[in-house]
């Protein structure tokens, strides 16, 4: 049995965007196979008041990716003398991931934030090697296939919902995931971003089994 540099620490991330808000959420469970390693490891990371990234997949690569992106984001802000917007960061994340095309970061990312050019809210969803798609809602990680049908049923091809309704949909979707998917659970972190406002951070309990 040779060494594999990868493992899947599980978990799920979900994001929903509206005209003047974006919600991004992730559970806090970290697992390794059938073992729960930790019940309180956040999958959401804040880069500045405009940019939040949710990451499912391998924990070590998540931290490594955060560090690389954090350095580039700070450099950008020192040189440009302005806060980085989510559109620029989306491009940065895509190129960072693709640069590792032949030894990928085992991460499944969703980016949420405020575009500083026109004050709109956006979500970008990625695969492990940097394929990027701007979308009105997204899910990634182990529970992706359980969450996405719930989001499609409630949000696809309908008028944009309010932030409260979006939170209801997101919570329901996560309950679907934590019920049936073993690596999702413990606590749900939901962050709400609005242009020009501080990020509102909430937590909710999920199943601990």
């Amino acid at each position: 049995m040779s060494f594999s540099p990868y493992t899947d620490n599980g978990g799920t991330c979900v994001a929903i965007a509206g005209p003047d808000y974006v919600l991004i959420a992730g559970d806090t469970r970290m697992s390794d196979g059938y073992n729960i390693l930790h019940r309180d490891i956040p999958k959401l990371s804040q880069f500045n008041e405009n940019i939040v990234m949710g990451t499912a997949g391998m924990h070590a690569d998540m931290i490594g990716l955060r560090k690389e992106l954090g350095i580039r984001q700070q450099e950008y802000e020192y040189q440009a003398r302005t806060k980085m917007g989510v559109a620029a960061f989306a491009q940065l994340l895509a190129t960072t991931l693709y640069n590792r095309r032949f030894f990928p970061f085992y991460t499944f990312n969703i980016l949420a934030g405020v575009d500083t050019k026109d004050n709109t809210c956006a979500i970008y969803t990625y695969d492990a090697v940097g394929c990027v798609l701007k979308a009105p809602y997204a899910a990634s990680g182990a529970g992706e296939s359980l969450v996405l049908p719930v989001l499609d049923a409630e949000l696809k091809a309908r008028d944009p919902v309010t932030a409260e309704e979006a939170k209801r949909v997101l919570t329901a979707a996560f309950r679907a995931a934590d019920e049936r998917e073993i690596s999702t659970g413990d606590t749900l972190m939901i962050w709400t971003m609005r242009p020009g406002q501080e990020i509102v951070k909430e937590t909710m309990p999920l199943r601990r089994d």
Partner: protein
Amino acid sequence: MVRYKGIRRVTAYDNGVCLGFSGDHADFQSIDDELTNMIRQDQCVDDGVTMGAKSIYGFLAAWMYQQRNEMKPLSVSLVVAGKDDKGEPFLGTVDQLGTHYEAPFVATGFGNDLALPVLRKEWTPNMSELDAIRLVEDCLRVCYQRDCKASNSIVMAKSTVDGVQVGVEYKLQNINWQ
């Protein structure tokens, strides 16, 4: 076959940090050498600031991740215990892929399957030292009973405000084989 008996899995450093490991002994010796030199160098600089457990943990996490990125993993699971920079108790673990986290209790190897359930049931935030030692012994007893490669000879290292100490080796008693 047990090839080497009496191999200790815990060690302590002058700066109050305890390190425990599971896995490749050669890789652990290499890590031990590196940390000993690093901590000695840190003391020789003599600037009034020395690395605590959290710094050592951060260094090990970065180093282990770097090695995995180069496909030259250090094939160990490490436990780092001591005090953080503010003097609060610190406990963290790092594995060969660079996975790292802090927790009030951790386990490596078979301990993940056998000891963590016991710890999750019995650990409380304000345990006395004696209760904690008994709890650790209970966990090691379960591991000895269920892991055929384990032995009942154990060593504990302890980090307190007064410093760090590796205890004497002793045998677990009262093993119930029924």
